[in-house]
């Protein structure tokens, strides 16, 4: 009896330790970001965030263009990806949820998540950018190709597997009994999906979408390759621009003054807080939804 008790407390404590380790890690990352960016924040104050000018040569560092660039590409990507990821999830979760074809499709979707982002970047450069250029020609816009829209497209493709896999699992887990209850009342398949499957799964589906959004915000390599790396405020969906993650990857190696480095770390802090905030808002929404 005592032995069991001892083992239990030991086990609980070791788990508690591991959990604390995770919290410690978050605190440590936060600390480095705050510490490293203090110079920039002391010098510019709030205008570090609201400033529109990023000019290392003149020593002015304003992050707004990249905040806008990150949010714009990520949300645009989300918007583009949702119809696809939800269709895939419904198809694999509700229509073809067993058998060989379903298994093949399911693992194909998961494979998509495993492709390194630099490969997505290459592919986008060779295939997506020309398509965007073609669209721009039709619309009488200078056919630059690279820019916000190209980045959003490749991001959309990259995040589809995340929201699709989670939504698929959630949809598969909707109890058969509930679906049968609706069918037995005379509901059509569409009504069952609309009135039972989606409402029951909505908080899980939403959680998957939030995960995808987080991925889109943090994605670096593929974005850098097709966004145009233009450090100004985007003024249209097609303008070459930059995101926080992409800028960090591009400029960290060449940062030659301590203020420059500090400003880049400051951008890192902004991204960290932005992601945390979006996650928090997402959690609140999920709680609302699951009531």
């Amino acid at each position, binding site marked *: 009896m005592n032995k069991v008790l001892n083992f239990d407390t030991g086990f609980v404590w070791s788990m508690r330790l591991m959990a604390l380790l995770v919290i410690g890690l978050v605190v440590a990352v936060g600390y480095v970001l705050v510490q490293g960016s203090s110079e920039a924040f002391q010098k510019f104050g709030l205008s570090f965030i609201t400033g529109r000018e990023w000019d290392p040569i003149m020593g002015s560092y304003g992050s707004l263009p990249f905040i806008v660039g990150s949010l714009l590409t990520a949300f645009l990507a989300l918007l583009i990806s949702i119809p696809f990821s939800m269709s895939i999830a419904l198809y694999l979760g509700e229509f073809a949820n*067993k058998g060989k074809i379903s298994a093949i499709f399911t693992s194909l979707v998961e494979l998509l998540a495993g492709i390194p982002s630099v490969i997505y970047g290459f592919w986008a450069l060779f295939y997506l950018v020309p398509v965007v250029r073609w669209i721009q020609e039709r619309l009488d816009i200078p056919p630059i190709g690279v820019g916000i829209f190209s980045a959003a497209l490749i991001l959309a493709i990259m995040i589809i597997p995340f929201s699709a896999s989670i939504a698929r699992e959630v949809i598969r887990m909707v*109890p058969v*009994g*509930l679906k*049968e*209850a*609706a*069918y*037995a*009342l*005379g*509901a*059509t398949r569409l*009504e069952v999906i609309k*009135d*039972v499957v989606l*409402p*029951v799964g909505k908080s899980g589906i939403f959680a998957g979408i939030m995960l995808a959004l987080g991925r889109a915000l943090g994605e670096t390599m593929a974005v850098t390759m097709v966004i145009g790396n233009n450090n100004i405020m985007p003024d249209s969906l097609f303008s070459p621009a930059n995101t926080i993650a992409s800028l960090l990857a591009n400029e960290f190696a060449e940062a030659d003054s301590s203020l420059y480095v500090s400003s880049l770390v400051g951008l890192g802090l902004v991204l960290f807080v932005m992601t945390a905030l979006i996650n928090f808002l997402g959690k609140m929404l999920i709680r609302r939804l699951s009531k």
Partner: protein
Amino acid sequence: MLATMEYKETEQATATSVKVHVEGLRFFYGASEALHGITLDIPEKQVTALIGPSGCGKSTFLRTLNRMNDLIENTRVEGLVEVLGDNIYAPGYDLAELRRRVGMVFQRSNPFPKTIFENIAYGPRIHGVRDRATLEEIVEKSLRNAALWDEVKDRMNQSALGLSGGQQQRLCIARALAVDPEVILMDEPASALDPRSTAAVEDLILELRNQYTIVIVTHNMQQASRVSDFTAFFYEGDLVELGKTPNLFTCPREKRTEDYITGRFG
């Protein structure tokens, strides 16, 4: 099958009219045949109980009557199933309308994770009832018919998942009643309930038999004799015997029926 013929001659006269007519019904899950040619009639406004050992095909049979088995892939039906005079497996047959006229109550109560009101109103809604006052009327009537109204009338907007197991099952019965069915299929509706809730559901069935044609699957012999007018004994995918409930329980014609009801197997 012989037994059925006999039943037809001797006992059909007592039944007012036939609601469900099944002839030579065979059912296949893939290559395995679960029903080997069932022939029987289910009389109007009576309770017909289906009994038999586990795996003998009671649920399968029940679910052919509202085509719930269509949802299971790779299944096949042969033979004739007529519900309210229509061949329900005829091509182009309106499934939504069939399931409106033939309601179903499941073994495990399955209320939607919605309010009590919305649970009952869902069926009428999908069949086109939009008007709030009409919906409220239907909801109250259905809950009263299911002997649940007094217990829930003050909490219509609370989640149905907050009800007790027995209440949830009566809610599911009310939900089935709300689309105004003529036949109600029940698959072991009380097997997951405590004795008191079971008694409540049984009382309800006796109440409903004046208005509805009921087919109930049960493993509980006492329950079959308490609530049903006719009892059908299934064995390994065959209908062995169908008769008036008191007759079947007191003097079964078939040896296998007798063995089963006296508890010698199953």
